[in-house]
């Protein structure tokens, strides 16, 4: 059966909340804020399937998650897309699992291209992968997701300068701009400021879109595609809400890296429609 994007996203949100509840740890807030645009990316935008995926990415679009702590959304999407059995989501963060707390290639989880968790590194890796595609004549696209809080890392801006310098125009970077990080809002903690002006000043084409509206998401990816090959890397700033979809988690830093109680999980489940069938706990 074919599911609509909102149906998939609703199931992914259920997975996220159930995974961090079962593991009694993990990062629901940013996973929930990234769910909608990543659902679109995995189910509509990228030309890679569980059957064609390989780590070197040749002849395929490739996704690099830099903000590795939002592993729950990545794992759920990979499972729901068919990269590995949905039941494996129950092993998240458990001893011996392929679903490590932060993504790892060590145990060979299909769909994961690179370890991430120590922040600020994934954009550089994506630039390298994009330059490799240019060297080998592969016309496909590299997608990278960074967090807004992660953008406080200096390496992000080293990478920003480098991508523009090398005219890495087969790269679409994305920021989950939910305005929250562990210790508070991105403004209170570090004065993150005007990301659009910053990325434009570094020589990037910048697209801003509502990261929870599938029409706006489709339009943003379409604009990003039209900018490919135009000499500039592309940044999509997704306007999102931390914890989106679960009312008591929404819009606050409190759920960055905290698991709900069983009661809170049950409350969240009432707010999220089960569409594709929950994984067995």
């Amino acid at each position, binding site marked *: 059966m074919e599911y609509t994007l909102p149906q998939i996203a609703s199931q992914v949100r259920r997975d996220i909340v159930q995974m961090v509840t079962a593991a009694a740890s993990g990062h629901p807030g940013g996973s929930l804020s990234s769910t909608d645009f990543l659902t679109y990316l995995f189910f509509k935008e990228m030309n890679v399937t569980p059957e064609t995926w390989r*780590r*070197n*990415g*040749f002849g395929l679009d490739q996704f*690099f998650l830099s903000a590795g702590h939002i592993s729950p959304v990545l794992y759920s999407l990979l499972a729901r897309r068919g990269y590995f059995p949905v039941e494996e989501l129950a092993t998240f963060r458990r001893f011996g699992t392929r679903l490590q707390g932060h993504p*790892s*290639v*060590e145990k060979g989880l299909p769909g994961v*291209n*690179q*370890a*991430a*968790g*120590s922040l*600020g*590194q*994934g*954009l*550089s*890796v*994506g*630039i*390298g*992968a*994009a*330059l*490799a*595609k240019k*060297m*080998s004549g592969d016309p496909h696209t590299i997608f990278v997701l960074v967090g807004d809080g992660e953008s406080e890392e*200096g*390496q992000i801006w*080293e*990478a920003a*300068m*480098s991508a523009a*310098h*090398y005219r890495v125009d087969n790269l679409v970077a994305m920021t989950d701009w939910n305005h929250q990080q562990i210790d508070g809002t991105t403004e209170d903690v570090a004065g993150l400021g005007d990301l659009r002006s910053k990325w434009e000043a570094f020589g990037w084409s910048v697209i801003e879109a509502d990261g929870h509206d599938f029409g706006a998401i489709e339009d943003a990816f379409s604009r990003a595609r039209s900018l490919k090959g135009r000499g500039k890397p592309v940044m999509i700033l997704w306007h999102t809400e931390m914890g989106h979809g679960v009312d008591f988690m929404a819009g606050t830093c409190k759920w960055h890296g905290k698991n709900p109680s069983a009661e809170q999980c049950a409350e969240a489940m009432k707010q999220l429609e089960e569409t594709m069938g929950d994984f067995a706990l």
Partner: protein
Amino acid sequence: MKEYIDTGKKDTRSGFGAGLAELGNTNDRVVALTADLKGSLKMDEFAAAHPERFFEVGIAEANMVGMAAGMAIAGYIPFIGTFANFATARVMDQIRQSVCYSKTNVKIAASHAGITLGEDGATHQTLEDIGIMRMLPEMVVINPCDYNQTKAATLAAAAWDGPVYLRFGRPGVPNFTPADQKFEIGKAIKLNEGDDVTIIATGHLVWEAIQAAKQLEDQGVTVDLIDIATIKPLDKDAVIASARKTGRVVVAEEHLIAGGLGEVVAGVLAATCPTPMRFVAIDDQFGQSGKPAELMAAYGLDAAHIVEAALSLR
């Protein structure tokens, strides 16, 4: 004592440059990146011959490590070049996560290592890099002793599937190993057979150890002399066999005692055949400006100090 001839002083980093240039012509998957130190790393020949596979990243070492990891994922064999301090301490976390933990096939070419960097002083004289790199799972650590060995090690690093740290120096040093040698990663090189004391040296200290062995032989002390170019994985069998034979071990290196080859050897021997040892290395301090030879003598990293250490074990 076997004879070793200095065929003329050359810097080890130029051995890397020659190896990289050869790789550029023989392996189109080899790419090179530098953080504003193309000339210092002797990457000019590769860059001129293969501009499409050469990337000047600017003074942004963390980004360079990540870019190399991305290229490695795509199947390329990137060599990243900068000074040893900026290739290790500055980017240890990037190497840890994006290279070692991610099992990406990145080669780290680190020049100007150790105190022989000289006049620039302690900010640039890294004496911790071997320790930093050898702590990382998956990482191979190679510290070649002369131009020829460095060139051979560079070719071997490209053929090795996994992260490799290659350490070079700035000044010209005697070039005495065979030009046509094949470098075997993880294999110790026996330079002399002796029964009275084992001297294990790495990098610039190997030539000093040869001079020390000659002086010791003149005094009637025969030396089992081992060149350890691959610090990790260590050729444990060679080290244990020699220690069992002589019962005395001196380790000489241009590095801090902490984290260096001496500690590696001590760890192996402590677990297999505890052996009295001496460490010719720098003990818990920074370097300073000066001429390379002057600094090596001042910090006790020369033949005279190796002889003294060996005799003190009798």
